[in-house]
């Protein structure tokens, strides 16, 4: 069975006239895995990319730098994300080209698509992998952050093909440009639309939604802030510093804030600020998976043992809420001329 499947296929998401960062990162992962399988099994392991939607050639062309083959489908019906049609297109290409591994970026659309394709193909899918390996049998080993106290779990898909995975972004530095001279193949996919799902509107979230991902300074608060009043103080401080605010899951659970786009981590945003300042955050792997690319890490925690302190360049052992209030006081005191 396994013989019939070979190569790695990446679903690459486009963004305007380019590619999403996560798409380039996936291509990087695919290249590394392909090299490993190649070495182990002494066979050619082609890397291919699938791109759906864009009418312009640019994103597909960029992909040819990273992949042996780029399957590009510019059908009008795929211009905007339509879960059923997108899954149909990808499933069709998987059945046609039979890759042994299929990779998606672990965003909201990627997760839904991957789950739908895996169900149609009746194969296994691991979610939010933070590390990918090839074991001695040539199988993909997907490392995911498990439930509980900073435990990683391996997930394998030994007897079904393709092996499917959604990959957490922000783990690999995305390759800027590739040197492959891939073939661009325009795919005429048979899209069967039963008409039960139609797109009625698209609305940008505006700059607010991307603020966290693009911010140079992120001020993140956790459960150690203790209450909503202290959270609001943190927001005030972020304003004064011109920083974006981010949070951990308990902050949402406690309803100190309701905007899910503020959560950093495996189930939230991956950020890459120059400075990340985390206050009252323990540093669970679910959260820290989202800050791998942060430059400077400053952590404030009253527990010397806190994991986030271990990861920090500057470790402040003290009371978070009091320090936040004090910083506000200092800034305001020193800035009376505003």
């Amino acid at each position, binding site marked *: 069975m396994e013989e019939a499947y070979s190569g790695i296929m990446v679903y690459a998401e486009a963004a305007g006239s380019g590619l999403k960062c996560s798409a380039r990162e996936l291509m990087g992962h695919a290249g590394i895995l392909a090299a490993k399988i190649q070495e182990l099994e002494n066979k050619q392991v082609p890397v291919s990319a699938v791109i759906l939607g864009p009418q312009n050639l640019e994103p597909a062309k960029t992909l040819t730098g990273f992949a042996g083959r780029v399957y590009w489908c510019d059908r009008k019906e795929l211009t905007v994300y339509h879960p059923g049609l997108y899954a149909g297109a990808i499933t069709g290409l998987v059945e046609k080209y039979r890759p042994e591994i299929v990779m998606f970026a672990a965003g909201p659309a990627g997760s839904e698509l991957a789950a739908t394709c895996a169900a149609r193909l009746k194969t296994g899918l691991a979610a939010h992998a933070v590390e990918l390996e090839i074991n001695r049998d040539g199988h993909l080993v997907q490392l995911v952050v498990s439930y509980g106290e900073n*435990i990683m779990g391996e997930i394998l898909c030994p007897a079904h093909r393709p092996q499917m995975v959604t990959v957490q972004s922000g783990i690999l530095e995305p390759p800027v440009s590739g040197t492959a001279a891939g073939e661009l193949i325009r795919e005429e996919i048979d899209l069967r639309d039963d008409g039960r799902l139609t797109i009625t509107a*698209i609305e940008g979230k505006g700059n607010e939604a991307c603020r966290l991902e693009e911010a*140079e300074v992120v001020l993140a608060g956790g459960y150690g802030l203790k209450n909503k009043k202290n959270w609001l103080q943190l927001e005030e401080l972020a304003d004064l510093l011109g920083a974006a605010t981010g949070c951990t899951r308990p902050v949402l659970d406690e309803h100190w804030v309701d905007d899910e786009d503020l959560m950093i981590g495996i189930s939230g945003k991956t950020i890459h600020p120059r400075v990340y300042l985390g206050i009252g955050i323990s540093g669970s792997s679910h959260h*820290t998976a989202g800050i791998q690319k942060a430059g400077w890490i400053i952590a404030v925690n009253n527990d010397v043992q806190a994991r986030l302190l271990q990861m920090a360049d*500057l470790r402040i052992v003290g009371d978070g809420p009091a320090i936040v209030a004090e910083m506000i006081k200092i800034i305001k005191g020193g800035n009376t001329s505003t």
Partner: protein
Amino acid sequence: MNIYVVVKPVPDPKTKLTYDPEQKTVIRAGLATVINPPDKNALETGLRLREQSGGRVTVFSLAPPSAGESLKETLAMGADEVYLVSDPVFAGSDTLITALILARAISAIGVPDLVLAGDRTTDSGTSHVPAQLGEWLGLPHLANACEIVLRDQKNLAVKTSLDEVFISYRVTLPAVVSVTRRINRPRLATLLEMVRSRSKPVTLLDAAALNLSPEQTGLNASPTKPGRLLPARPVVKEGTIMSGTVGEMAQEILNRLQSLGYGPKAGGGLG
């Protein structure tokens, strides 16, 4: 409108966990559980649609029998009926098989107009189950809904939240939709409702009731298999440790920000 809500009891965040070295999963039996938070938003969505158009709201949950108690909260919130889908042979099912079992349970009771789910669980957190449930049922499905409006008896308007955009769809019922926490604020059950719900029944559906053989479910039937569990080690940095008075610590952070080029400026902006 006939509405089903799929709900998962998840470990109470306040309790310690133990692992099963054989199955390599969290031992769920006997663990204190709460309803997965976004599933309450799904239930709230269902309850509001019922208020608007009449009908019934039925809860389905695939969980160990011990979770029955925490499911009563859904009755207290206003659900009409609860099915606990439970059998020892279901243990170790991955998302594909979990979705299969839920689909069987739903088909056994009768496919409704709408199946609602949360967007992800706090324990496994894959977001796979709703889409895969939709696939097994052969129904159209949408994820990450932040707004749901009933257009007419056959159509739902659904606004979904992706990374950078909201996309709205019209979907023909029956359908499966998962909701984010943004969609509403779930009601709190009153103490009286909690007490009353204790005497209400939770109906059990086991493998036999669903015509599922042991080979079709559980770890063996699941395409994905857990491997080793490994400790996650943080990238330990050679950081400077600092403690002192609150004033000193606050100043130290501001100094550090300043030295990195991010001092507070008049008007609050950064350079």
